[in-house]
């Protein structure tokens, strides 16, 4: 499974209490290797990681050599794939999906001289393992605001993948954004139980539209929902990458994962001999999350979106700011209270306004 959350929670840090590696020698050239859970042609999650890899090559030129493995299953195969990279002369290995967590840590223990960077996980059992992730939910809040402005009926449809904290966080952030514009806004959710399956995703989109949603958003990786929305003449949001090519009249915006700057930063650190274990959860401020151009919307909606984006970027605003009630009506955040990252990273409840039962 992928796209899970880096954990700031104390216990994870305690697991890796050993001091960070002291800065070692500088390097002439670095071989950086990447493991992807999907095909690089998914135009979603793995595609964006590969764009990051290409960006890295472009930025560092001769100083970096890259290699990748795509569609690596997250079971027993992952450890072999990672070990093969470690043995083939890679200096730093980016394992880009949550399901590689245990395998990454196991191989890292065997190869102390190789650096490992695991996306979206929370275990750093050795000083040569870092974790990194993005606050995708920041972009979801803006999507929610746009959806509430653009929807005629006040109902949006959300194609969700798996009921894990990151996805739940995205749904909640979307709803909070929508409610900031229209307090009665409703969100319908379909669980596709897949990260990428164009057929299922398209069916989910159709079901949501038939249930009355006139805006579609997704936390699955294919472009199928965008294409269904186009056929039905409604608006939708792209996922992970800018999907405007697949819905020139349909896409409002997309939350784009931009891993390139992080990859450049980490490989540069290795070149300079300043690589240290980190746990990074970057958002818009750090450039990990970028909004695709605001398209197919009136100027006032665009202005609102840009305003919110600026506030989040400057750190003046966080989507999870009270008052917020949980779905069961109990209070979660008091007026002005900002959610604790630890709670977000284990989020397993909905906020009020989600028209769905969270699978438990």
């Amino acid at each position, binding site marked *: *499974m992928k796209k*899970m*959350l880096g*954990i700031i*929670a104390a*216990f994870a840090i305690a697991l890796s209490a050993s001091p960070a590696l002291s800065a070692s020698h500088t390097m002439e050239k670095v071989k950086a290797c990447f493991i992807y859970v999907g*095909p*690089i042609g998914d135009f979603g999650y793995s595609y964006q990681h590969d764009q990051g890899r290409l960006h890295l090559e472009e930025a560092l030129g001769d100083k970096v050599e890259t*290699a*990748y*493995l*795509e*569609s690596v*299953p*997250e*079971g*027993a*195969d992952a*450890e*072999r*794939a990672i*070990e*093969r*990279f470690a*043995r*083939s002369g890679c200096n730093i290995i980016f394992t880009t999906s*949550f*399901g590689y967590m*245990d395998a990454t840590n196991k191989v890292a223990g065997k190869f102390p001289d190789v650096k490992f960077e695991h996306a979206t996980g*929370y275990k750093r059992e050795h000083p040569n393992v870092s974790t990194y992730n993005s606050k995708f939910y920041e972009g979801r809040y803006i999507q929610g605001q746009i959806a509430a402005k653009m929807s005629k009926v006040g109902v949006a449809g959300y194609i969700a993948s*798996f*009921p*894990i*904290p990151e996805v739940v966080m995205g749904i909640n952030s979307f709803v909070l954004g929508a409610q900031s514009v229209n307090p009665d806004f409703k969100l319908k959710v379909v669980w596709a*139980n897949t990260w990428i399956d164009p057929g299922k995703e398209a069916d989910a989109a159709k079901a949501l539209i038939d249930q009355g949603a006139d805006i579609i958003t997704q936390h699955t990786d294919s472009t199928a929902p965008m294409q269904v929305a186009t056929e039905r003449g409604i608006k939708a949001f792209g996922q992970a990458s800018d999907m405007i090519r697949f819905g020139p009249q349909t896409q409002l915006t997309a939350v784009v994962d931009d891993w390139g700057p992080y990859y450049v930063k980490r490989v540069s650190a290795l070149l300079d001999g300043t690589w240290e274990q980190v746990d990074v959860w970057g958002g818009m401020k750090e450039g990990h999350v970028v909004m695709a151009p605001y398209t197919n919307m009136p100027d006032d909606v665009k202005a609102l979106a840009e305003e919110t984006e600026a506030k989040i970027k400057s750190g003046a605003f966080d989507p999870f700011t009270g008052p917020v009630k949980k779905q069961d009506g109990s209070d979660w955040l008091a007026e002005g209270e900002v959610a604790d990252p630890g709670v977000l*990273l*284990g*989020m*397993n409840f909905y906020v009020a306004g989600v028209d769905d039962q969270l*699978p*438990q």
Partner: protein
Amino acid sequence: MRIEVSRRQMPSRAFAYLSPAIALALTMVLGAVVFMALGKSPTAALYSYFIEPLTETWSLHELLIKATPLILISVGLSVCYLSNNWNIGAEGQYLMGAVAGSAIPVLMPEFQSFITLPLMLLLAMAGGAAYAAIPAFLKTRFNTNEILTSLMLVYVAQLFVDWLVRGPWRNPQGFSFPGTITFNDYALLPEIFPASGRANFGILFALVAALLVWLMLRKTMKGFEIRVLGQNPRAGRFAGFSAAKMTFFAFLLSGALAGLAGIIEVAGAVQHLNEKLSAGYGFAAIIVVFLGRLNPAGAVVAGLVLALTYLGGEAAQISLQISDKSARVFQGMLLFLVLASDTLIHYRIRFVTSGAAAQEAN
């Protein structure tokens, strides 16, 4: 000139041995063409496919890990298919075996003793067999098509595992992420040579299972019964063999072996139960059965070959920077050509020139 394909009176012994070699040679040639079209050196590609994974000890360990479930499952399936019972649901039996065996370390983590692991293995075999008993029962009682029922039960098993690891069996310290707790040391399958790689005792189970089933098929009355009922059910009935009992026997045996494969994967390489447990071993094993010609000894070889193509595909991706897709195309080509070459065992191909044809007509 035309090409004539005619059935041989007897299957050709020569081609039974030659056909894998022909297939391999054709794969090499076609593969070389594909790799050249991609602008890659064909020799380097073939080297990384077939040789590179065998050149290092750790990689040999990985080969055994990958081959273990394939061999175990296909040994069981060979009994099914020989006796004319079409169990397509080994994937589900594999998962249910994994679940049954995992129950001990997940529900009773304090139960740590030297019998923990043996109990898990037995429970897994029982779980897999019980799950396989469902299509067997439906077939013998209601005459349902076991291909459909066993296949559909795969999806039930997949969703059941998914529900378990997200719900009741979820690791409470796992931040709501799916997956059980990591098993305690007594619940893990030991590695054979921990110093050089992570291959575990699972491969020995697979080899022993293959040997026992081979002996059974060759040397025992049961083996005779299996073949008779498979090839000629009517003759089998006259001989007093019960087709219904055989259906149960074949399904229970293959279910138990698939279940064993499941717990070996969990307690060996993965070390906790999660929803990503199977990379389609239950289905890949069907290919292995036929590559191995429905023979347990053949299944061992075929399992290793198929495992090699997975590893080789990975090696080729890294060393040649070809995509995952071209690696899979190559794997598919190999399997297709092996099965296609088997045609030569039963059929003769003649190239008839028009002159010869005219002569024949006279």
